[in-house]
């Protein structure tokens, strides 16, 4: 057991650090949840991609460097430590791409991944529906067979990035009336500007259009944009949820950087002992999260699978992120109220943590049932 990276990894770290030092903009771009910010972040993705830093863990043919998960973690540490912008292409890179690697065709990978890596095509997710929040399997939007493809109809919501994005991916019910709601779903990719698509941006708590409703009215999707087999969508979507994604949904580098910023804020605000314990807990939590992720990555590298323990991960970081930001706001005192402060958008974002990617209530049920073996309750 050791925590020392090998020389090649350290060289990789140095290279990333040097590149970031030379390229990260000195002042952050506007929020990526605004039109101008979205464009600025898209340009940043292109800049990353130009030197092959946008998707380091992907194979080289698709624009990556083929690094393993440990180096991905190292890259993320450097990325956030450098204060680099948020990743507008996150949905595509961390949700769609792993699915294409596992279940897509070579043609799909060649067609979809490089423009994703360059930020040319930004992807939105289209999972949820108004009546299907935690109960994702109860989806109602339909995919109806037509000549050479499918016609999508229905309504999706909480589609993050969709206000300004190019394309979307999601599950649609292609075989209605089956016994179990998980069956008969199909995983499809579609164009947000195709005929029949209406995108209605939804304001987040801070008013920014961080997600959208999608109204779909017989939107044609060619067969080439079905991922995996028709009717197998649930299995396709879930199979990738279980591996690296549990470890990489939120990178430890982000929290390490935030905890350092918090400690610096505490320092500059006079090192009030009354808040010292909470600052210490932020430092402890960031380190614990990093180490937990390293342990998972090491198991993964040794051939293990990441299963229900990704629920531990989710509960931990989402609660942690809120506590960290609330400590920052308490340090800011009267300026905590300012929506234009350096912690403001992060705080608003943190509040969504326990809700999205599976509510923490669901995650705790999973932990209790699958990791502790407690009886399945009524759900």
């Amino acid at each position, binding site marked *: 057991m050791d925590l020392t990276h090998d020389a090649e990894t350290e060289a990789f770290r140095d290279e990333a650090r040097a590149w970031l030092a030379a390229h990260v903009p000195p002042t952050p771009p506007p929020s990526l949840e605004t039109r101008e910010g979205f464009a600025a972040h898209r340009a940043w993705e292109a800049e990353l991609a130009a030197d092959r830093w946008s998707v380091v863990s992907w194979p080289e043919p698709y624009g990556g460097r083929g690094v393993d998960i440990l180096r991905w973690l190292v890259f993320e540490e450097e990325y956030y430590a450098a204060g680099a912008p948020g990743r507008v292409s996150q949905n595509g890179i961390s949700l769609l791409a792993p699915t294409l690697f596992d279940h897509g065709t070579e043609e799909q990978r060649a067609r979809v991944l490089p423009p994703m890596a360059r930020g040319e095509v930004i992807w939105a997710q289209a999972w949820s529906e108004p009546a299907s929040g935690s109960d994702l399997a109860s989806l109602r939007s339909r995919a109806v067979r037509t000549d050479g493809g499918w016609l999508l109809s229905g309504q999706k919501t909480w589609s993050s990035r969709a206000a300004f994005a190019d394309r979307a991916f999601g599950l649609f019910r292609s075989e209605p009336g089956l016994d179990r709601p998980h069956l008969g779903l199909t995983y499809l990719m579609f164009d947000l500007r195709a005929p029949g698509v209406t995108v209605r941006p939804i*304001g*987040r708590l801070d008013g920014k259009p961080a997600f959208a409703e999608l109204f779909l009215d017989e939107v044609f999707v060619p067969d080439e944009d079905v991922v995996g087999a028709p009717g197998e969508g649930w299995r396709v979507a879930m199979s990738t949820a279980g591996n690296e994604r549990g470890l990489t949904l939120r990178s430890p580098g982000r929290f390490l950087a935030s905890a350092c910023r918090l400690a610096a804020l505490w320092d500059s605000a006079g090192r009030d002992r009354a*808040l010292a314990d909470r600052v210490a807990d932020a430092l402890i939590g960031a380190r614990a999260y990093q180490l937990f992720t390293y342990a998972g990555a090491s198991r993964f590298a040794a051939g293990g699978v990441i299963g229900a323990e990704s629920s531990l991960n989710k509960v931990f970081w989402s609660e942690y992120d809120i506590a960290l930001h609330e400590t920052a706001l308490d340090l800011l005192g009267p300026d905590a*109220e300012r*929506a234009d402060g350096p912690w403001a958008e992060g705080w608003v974002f943190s509040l969504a943590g326990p809700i999205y990617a599976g*509510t923490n209530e669901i995650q705790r049920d999973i932990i209790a049932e699958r990791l502790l073996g407690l009886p399945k309750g*009524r759900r």
Partner: protein
Amino acid sequence: MRFLLDAEQREFARTLEALLAAADAPSAARAWARGDHAPGRALWDRFAKAGVFALAVPDESEGAGRLPLELTLAFEALGRHAVPGPAVETVAASVLLAGLGDAAPAQAWLPRLASGGALATLRGDGGYALDADVADAVLVVAGDTGEELWLVDEPGPAVPSHDPVRRLFAPAARGDLLARGPHVAAAAGEARAWAALATAAQALGVGRALLDRTVAYVRERRQFGVAVGSFQAVKHRLADVLVALEFARPLVHAAALSLDPVDIAMAKVASGEAACASARAALQLHGAIGYTDELELSLWLRKARPLRDAWGTPASCRARIVGAS
């Protein structure tokens, strides 16, 4: 000892409740956030006619005398209905002006403030004054020892709040120097105490509105074939919110009875934290829909934390309680 609202107080609370339930305060709040003050001022007029702003104004200035307990009832209602505007600050300004011991500014302003004809605001310790653009009087206490009182002629630069209905400005101490001397600092201290008390009551109302709306939502919303409100995790979380709110309210009432700074600090901490706990629960149990600007819930969600901190952060209040400030 009878720690119970009397019939008149209950009637006053009922009247305000009926008045506000009939008005469309959420729409007025939305308009206010856009800088359209008309619906909010109309609401304010009705609220003032019910006597709310007279509750902090002495009889001799056409007020109702000082009735802090009734004031907390009013502000709890105001919080429950998300009424926009510098209501806390108008009360604080009234107390400040009345406390100067100088008839002139009091005569000039108090009758208008008591009747709702004028809105006032007051710069807080953080340097911001709520709604200084719309307030008829913008007051700033300044000077090293807080002994200068300025009637400011410009609202100063706008500062965005997490709650867009709370329109903050950063006025500078210039304009008319209304008063100077130790009596200013004393009156300002009293004004801050009333502001803290009113804010505590308002936070309580905000917390209660969030709880009520969340209870209603989880009774209706179904997932996995049952009402979300039948899950024990949901029930227990809301139960804890109710505990927090119900134990904060008596502190608010007691602080109104004594106007003691430590009592006010206790009320402010408990109600502010309870409102924030209610907001966290409301957001979580509404799920994504609660995280949107569009849902009316956001009017209360976004107010909980600013109210927790305004006119006395929990940290400063706790320091006062243990005698460390």
